[in-house]
């Protein structure tokens, strides 16, 4: 199965439409929006790490508003319990049976705000649903539906009262990025429109959940040449060999990369993936998966530097792969 150039072009058009729509709520942040939409269509989850007030929540709300589906918001606090997320089973005396009350996780787009404020136990409750797409409560499994995307935000970990996300959970986010402050022109525009603070509310849904699923299915067939796969693998190995890391990119990390790259390429109207796509996605997809060695961390080295170094050292492929 493959996708044609026409399909790729349609995909790219749709992607642009979605980007523009979300962009109405989040001015001047097209790159982040593109990454977020890529996550959505790659059926992954997005972690936004940024200072408060930069528009993390606005992005999630705008995404949710654009997709014609349900969305919920969970504000993570230290006393939040797992059942507050997944839902609880209550006894319905009238019907004389146990009834499951779905928690906020059962939505197309879930905004998990300040995820690192919750206790590890509660954080881990997210694990199953994020990875497997269903929730098991009291032995019964409940499907989370399609599309299902968690947009988690976290404050920088240095802040007080935070629980650092475990590596395993970090690995389940397809991408981690930050919104950042808007440029001056956009910021002025935001201030001008401050009378109506929530622009996301005015957004019209542009795409149905079924269409999102269709796009996600289509893009899975996007062609990735062996040379590009080899490039991904060489980059992955290079992160593991780097002297500053204790843990490089996992296999899940490289799989995620290929998944994201297929969407990224199709979003550009291509029915094939280029090494350029890999390079562009390397930091958002891999940055949070690399564990720095304590010495390097102490010396001030960052995962971004490791990714940049790896991209600098590994030769980009020029020739078509030999075929497997």
């Amino acid at each position, binding site marked *: 199965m493959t996708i044609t150039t026409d399909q790729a072009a349609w995909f790219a058009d749709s992607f642009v439409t979605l980007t523009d729509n979300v962009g109405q709520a989040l001015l001047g942040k097209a790159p982040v929006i593109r990454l977020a939409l890529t996550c959505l269509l790659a059926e992954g989850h997005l972690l936004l790490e940024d200072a408060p007030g930069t528009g993390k929540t606005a992005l999630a709300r705008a995404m949710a508003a654009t997709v014609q589906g349900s969305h919920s918001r969970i504000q993570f606090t230290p006393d939040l319990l797992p059942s507050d997320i997944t839902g609880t089973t209550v006894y319905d005396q009238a019907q004389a049976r146990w009834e499951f009350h779905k928690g906020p996780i059962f939505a197309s787009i879930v905004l998990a705000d300040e995820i690192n404020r919750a206790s590890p136990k509660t954080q881990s409750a997210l694990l199953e649903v994020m990875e497997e797409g269903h929730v098991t409560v009291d032995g019964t499994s409940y499907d989370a539906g399609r599309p299902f995307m968690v947009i988690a935000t976290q404050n920088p970990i240095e802040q007080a009262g935070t629980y650092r996300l475990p590596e395993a959970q970090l690995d389940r986010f397809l991408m981690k990025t930050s919104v950042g402050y808007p440029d001056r022109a956009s910021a002025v525009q935001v201030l001008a429109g401050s009378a109506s603070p929530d622009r996301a509310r005015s957004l019209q849904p542009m795409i149905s959940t079924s269409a999102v699923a269709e796009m996600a299915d289509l893009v899975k067939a996007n062609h990735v*040449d062996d*040379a*590009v796969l080899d490039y991904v693998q060489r980059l992955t190995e290079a992160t593991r060999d780097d002297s500053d890391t204790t843990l490089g990119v996992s296999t899940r990390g490289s799989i995620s990369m290929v998944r994201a790259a297929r969407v990224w390429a199709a979003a550009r109207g291509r029915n*094939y993936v280029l090494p350029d796509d890999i390079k562009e996605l390397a930091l958002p997809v891999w940055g949070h998966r690399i564990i720095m060695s304590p010495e390097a961390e102490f010396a001030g080295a960052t995962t971004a530097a490791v990714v940049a170094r790896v*991209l600098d050292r590994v030769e*980009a492929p*020029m*020739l078509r792969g*030999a075929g497997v």
Partner: protein
Amino acid sequence: MSTDSQGRTRPQLTEPGTTQLTPGRRRRALPVPQAVDVVAMLVLLATGVVAFGPVFADASGYAAAGGGVLLGTAVAAVGAWRRWSAFAVAAATLAVFVAFGGPLALPSTTLGGVVPTPETVNRLVVLTWQAWRDLLTVSVPASSFTGPAVVPYLSGLVCAVLAVGLALRGRRHLWALAPAATLLVVGILWGTKTAPSAAVQGAVFCVTALAWAGWRTALQQHRDNAHLLTSRRTNTSAQRQRIVAAAVVLAVAGGSSAFLGSGMVSASDRYVLRDDVVPPLDLRDYASPLTRYRYYERDQKEKTLFTVTGLPEGSRFRVAAMDGYDGHVFSVDAASAQFRRVGSRIGVTTPDGARTLDVEVGDYEGVWIPGGGDVGGVSFEGSRAESLGAGLYYNADSGTLLSTAGLQGGERYTVTVAPAPAPTDEQLAKDSIVTGAGDAEVDVPDAIAGITSDFAEPGESQIDQLRKLESKFREVGFYSNDDTVSTAGHFDGRLTALFSGARMIGDDEQYATSMALMVRQLGYPARVVLGFYPEESTPGEPVALTGNDAHVWVEVPFEKAGWVAFDPTPDRDKTPDTKVPKPDEVPQPQVLPPPVPPEEPVDPPEDRTDDSSTTKRDEKGLEVPPAVRIAAYVAGAGALLASPFAAIVLLKRRRRARRRRDGRTADRISGGWDEIVDAAADLGVRTPARLTRQESARDFAETFPTVGPVAVAERMDAHVFGRGEPSQADVDEMWRQVHSLRHGMSRSVHPVRRLRAVVSPRSLLINRRPRRTT
């Protein structure tokens, strides 16, 4: 604070025990780059030192130039070490110049060859500018003069100070090559035409200069970029490439210079200032003085040609000695190689018993300065003294003086000349004739060669034999300067006629040349001398020499006595009775008829001229015209020099064809991109391997604004990484775009850069592995 031995406190700049990084500490260790700089400069300057060798012919040239270079290097190195100001370096240079100038450049003015005297300093100052002229104008082994060595010494010193100083301290190190090259150029221009090691010098200079310049530039770039370099690895690979490129260039340069050096460099092509400043003395410009003899003797018979004061009694006033005979004329030609340019003083010491002759020129005119012999010095007076002195030459072998300015009537000069010895025949009988001193190639006319054995009788000794020959001429011959019976000249026809006629009739010219040739035929050297001597003179009084006093005589060298004069000319009053016609001619019992002479026109001069001209023509016929030869050399050299570039162009063409032909269709398209990357590399834009096609395309788009490489890269990526194998038509289309892109890139740069890119080996040297997976 700490206290020293006097108990004074002094500030302590650093904590005890910490590393002190004061400038003084850092300066003490000589870093390797600076040592390399000094060594490279010394090698470059050494080629200049060697260039000064031939003109001095002995070690003095090397000593002066080499000493200057070493001293200059020392001054510059110490100056760099101690961080002297330019003024301090100049002062030190001046001090060194004066202190060591004596032993290195003017050893004869020093005490014991080392300690400078006031004269040394005095002359050093004057010679600082005069020596440049002197070195060009003195005769070639300049070592026999005091002074010219200042040129190599001064230029070596100054060039070394500048070269080493610039190399060690200059902001732009490569300027150091200029003074180093200057020394070589000065050495060549002030040198001689013959330079045995010119090719080697040139090759060594070029190779060293290129290598050092390359190394210096690389070092500078490395320093400039030190903060940009993330890892040493990329740096070393770039360096390795650079070293390989440099080695190739140096090998080509060295090889071609060695090859061309043997074929192209010849002494006659070498340009030296000496050519311009001093026209070499060409004696062919001046007629043999002997041809003027009859003019003096007959036409200026009563005219006073010179008035000489101090001429010793019985001594002869020589004009010129002639030792070369070519069948036409006796000339000084053969000895011209020994004509040296001289100043007013000749030789270091005045000859023993030398007398000073004061000469006032009367009606004499000519370049030959009468008064020759063993001359100790000549000084001219009057308005033309300067030009006469400047053009003065002296041939020590024949004792002949010549001034290219030419003497004119009324001029005065003094000559210090040693009297010619006058040995008796008894002394000479014990002496023997020097053999091998004269003209080895005896060119004696056949008539004379044929009758010599009959004419010259054997004697008891060599002098006896020559005296007999001399008296034979006097006995048999008649004297006449009448053109009707005795024509002037001494070409071989005239000499043949002298012997073949019924009677020998001639004047000094014919008798002296005949005897000289006969002596040569006997196997002894002999020369003919033109001079003046009076019939009688009163000692101490000025002697007025008239044309009548002109004489020509023969001189033969004896081992102890030197040149001994012979006068074969019959007395001037022994004239043939021309008034008595026929009867006299037939019976002449007292005249020993010479044996039947060979046919009259023995060896007509025309033949000879013909001969010489034909040989000349032959040589010309064989010789390739110089223009053609030069053109051939230039073409050959051009072809040789161009060959590496041609090879580069061919290699690139082959690479291009291979890329378009080999591999899968997708690889051929990738090959098209390699071609663009290489074109960019040749244009000076390096593409790191980490860049993807589109990233490098964006780089190119910034560098080459007129072309659209990004679109080409996108299309290529679609073919290479897309699904399905591209067709050959796709390959051809992509290559068409590659070609237009390449041309667009090269058109967007300056034509010079474009040309350089065509022949640049850079893209061939880049170590590019095929970026292929699995």
